[in-house]
């Protein structure tokens, strides 16, 4: 009954502290910082000037090229400046900074909460709407949604998988969304099915969310072609390739994409955003973020406007505990540590995780005892001990032969290492070098 992927995986403590905390709407902050690059691909080009008055939902930066997407103002107010800021990745980029005045929305947006099930748009209109509304994958990868909904020539798609695994410990934003906006999520799934021209969708949910499984199973009876697939609790169950294998038995080829086996995967948060964009004409200007950590006074799930400073989110959760030593943007397995908290929430921010100082430092690295636990943990069938050493020693060709580029950087190997070796650090180095060298080979 519970399905999973066949090889590897780990069971870190789940620590879903905020699983029963309903989504709280965070008040609009006095100022927002909206980076123009919140997606994979070319940064958008700002189309507003300093001093311009903007409404919530108005385009403030336009997509540049196909692999790019629009950025909208999440608030109403005046553009204070267009400046270079540090974003959640730690890099500098252009952002539009807006002083908030009131909360006026563009009139085309339907802000009612009534469920709108009837889909009137055509396939092409849906994809165009997703592009217009600046939709990206909300699971963290932030790949523009309109591209994923466009099946490339020569490929075919027969199935949609909605990723509700949320296998990262601590994070609960997708869980809450499924519970509180289940019908909207399933309508979003139906829209995605229509855009792709497929008859079937499966919602994969890990067994540690029994309430979400039963709620969506109940709701799915009202939706044609959608079923709920309970999944075993095992990290990385929500990894795209692992999820497809668990739900369909199909194996995405090495170096391939889900579409190679006729599947498109969308995150629960993305399905909800698709619903809002298509049914309510609402651009992607807010998202649910889990703010959590064992010392956090009031951890919770917050619906926040894009561009809200992370500091405001942490304040909403009871402030930064004195013992905090690390703040992570995302989950503990794949999230990125923030150097400063004065950075804006972006489309890809799924959680803010605060670690006490004691848990924020790495343990002493000991010699590899060749226990093989990393190989057993790797869901891609790689040998992390080997490819990390090959990277460490700069043996790029051998690392390439050992399929280092198949690594999805889930971190299961480094998590499981009893000698606390920084396996993934070296593998990341090797993977990026191998990809760079391969590109150079092609261009030569």
């Amino acid at each position: 009954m519970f399905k999973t992927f066949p090889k590897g995986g780990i069971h870190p403590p789940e620590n879903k502290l905020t699983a029963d905390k309903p989504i709280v709407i965070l008040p609009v902050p006095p100022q927002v910082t909206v980076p123009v690059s919140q997606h994979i691909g070319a940064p958008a080009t700002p189309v507003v000037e300093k001093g311009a008055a903007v409404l919530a939902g108005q385009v403030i930066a336009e997509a540049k090229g196909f692999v790019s997407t629009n950025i909208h103002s999440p608030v109403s107010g005046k553009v204070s400046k267009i400046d270079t800021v540090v974003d959640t990745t730690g890099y500098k980029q252009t952002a539009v900074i807006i002083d908030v005045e009131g909360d006026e929305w563009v009139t085309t947006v339907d802000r009612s909460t009534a469920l709108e099930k009837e889909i009137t748009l055509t396939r092409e209109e849906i994809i165009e709407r997703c592009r217009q509304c600046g939709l990206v994958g909300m699971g963290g990868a932030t790949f523009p949604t309109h591209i994923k909904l466009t099946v490339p020539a020569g490929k075919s798609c027969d199935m949609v998988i909605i990723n509700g695994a949320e296998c990262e410990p601590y994070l609960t934003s997708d869980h809450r969304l499924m519970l509180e906006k289940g019908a909207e999520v399933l309508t979003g799934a139906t829209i995605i099915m229509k855009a792709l021209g497929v008859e079937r969708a499966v919602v994969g949910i890990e067994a540690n969310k029994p309430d979400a499984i039963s709620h969506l199973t109940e709701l799915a009876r009202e939706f044609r072609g959608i079923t709920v697939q309970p999944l075993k609790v095992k990290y990385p169950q929500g990894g795209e390739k692992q999820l497809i294998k668990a739900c369909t038995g199909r194996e995405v080829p090495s170096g391939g994409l889900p579409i190679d086996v006729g599947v498109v995967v969308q995150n629960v948060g993305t399905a909800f955003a698709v619903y809002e964009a298509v049914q309510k004409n609402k651009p992607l200007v807010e998202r649910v973020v889990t703010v959590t950590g064992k010392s956090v006074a009031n951890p919770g799930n917050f619906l926040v406007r894009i561009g809200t400073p992370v500091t405001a989110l942490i304040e909403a959760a009871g402030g930064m505990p004195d013992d905090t030593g690390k703040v992570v943007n995302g989950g503990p397995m794949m999230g990125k540590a923030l150097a400063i908290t004065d950075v804006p929430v972006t489309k890809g921010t799924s959680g803010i995780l605060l670690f006490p100082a004691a848990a924020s430092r790495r343990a002493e690295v000991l010699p590899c005892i060749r226990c093989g636990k990393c190989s057993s943990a790797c869901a891609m069938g790689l040998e992390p001990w080997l490819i990390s050493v090959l990277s460490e020693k700069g043996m790029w060709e051998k690392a390439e032969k050992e399929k280092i580029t198949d690594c999805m950087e889930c971190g299961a190997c480094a998590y499981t290492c009893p000698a606390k070796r920084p396996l993934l650090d070296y593998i990341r180095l090797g993977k990026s070098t191998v990809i760079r060298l391969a590109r150079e080979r092609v261009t030569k």
Partner: protein
Amino acid sequence: MNKILNVSPSPHISTPETTRRLMYGVVIALIPALAASIYYFGMGAIIVTLTSVVSCVAVEYLVQKFILKTRPSVSDGSAVVTGLLLAFNVPSNLPIWIIIIGAIISIGVAKMTFGGLGSNPFNPALVGRVFLLISFPVQMTSWPVPSGFRTGYLDAVTGATPLGVLSEGVKAGESVASLMEKVPTHMQLFYGYMGGSMGEIAAAALIIGGIYLLWKKIISWHIPVSILVSVALFTGILWLADPTKYADPGFHLLTGGIMLGAIFMATDYVTSPMTHKGMIIYGIGIGVITVLIRTWGAYPEGVSFAILIMNAFVPLLNMYIKPKRFGKEVKHG
């Protein structure tokens, strides 16, 4: 917000499992067998164990401190495990000075010269054991008899293990059936009522330790099961072919170092393969070589040699036996 935050790449959490916890897990698993040894051999078992553990830890500490001039890492527990396993692989009446030589060879030569924990190709305790066996054949094969052994034929087998009785007897032309009269029953063998190396005799206690290791996920089943099954199959075939010349599989599984070897020696992380497929091939190799030595070799027992021989194949197995990769390959335009 002037707080200085730590920044490091993901993952930000790590398993509570550490090298030290794994090593002490092995020590805990060895306790039943140690208790059995003390029960059968008394004071000798205690003295041999203490000498071996203390000298292994001391050798590692001294080598790291004075020769390698690195920070001693004896607290990781690996030298304690080697010390216990070396003690388990020698008779309980071995003189202290020979044990110290064994510790120097095990830790000093077989482990530290290769770079210490994680770098040694051969199982340190077994290198020490085989070195002693070749250098001190008399002391290393004068097996004390468990104190409970008070039956009539006891005098005849003083100093010999059941495998020794079998090997000598078959060479002298005796039938296996009559030899089986001279050795303890299978049930006695199971509880450890026989002569032999101090820690190898009590199959029951070793199996309890093995179950603990499996339960704590310190080892996987692949190596022990493939060794035991291949020994059982190989000796079973021989036994079915000619029961007058070959002993039954039960006898082979319960005597000598098979249990100790399969559960504790061959499963040493450092010197065993990294993949499950590799582990099974390695285990089968150990089982087959053990039976070959026992049946046709010069020594009555061959587990130590079999494990050391297969240790040498481990780099090869790691190179050619790969885990099943996720996803078939595709050509990308």
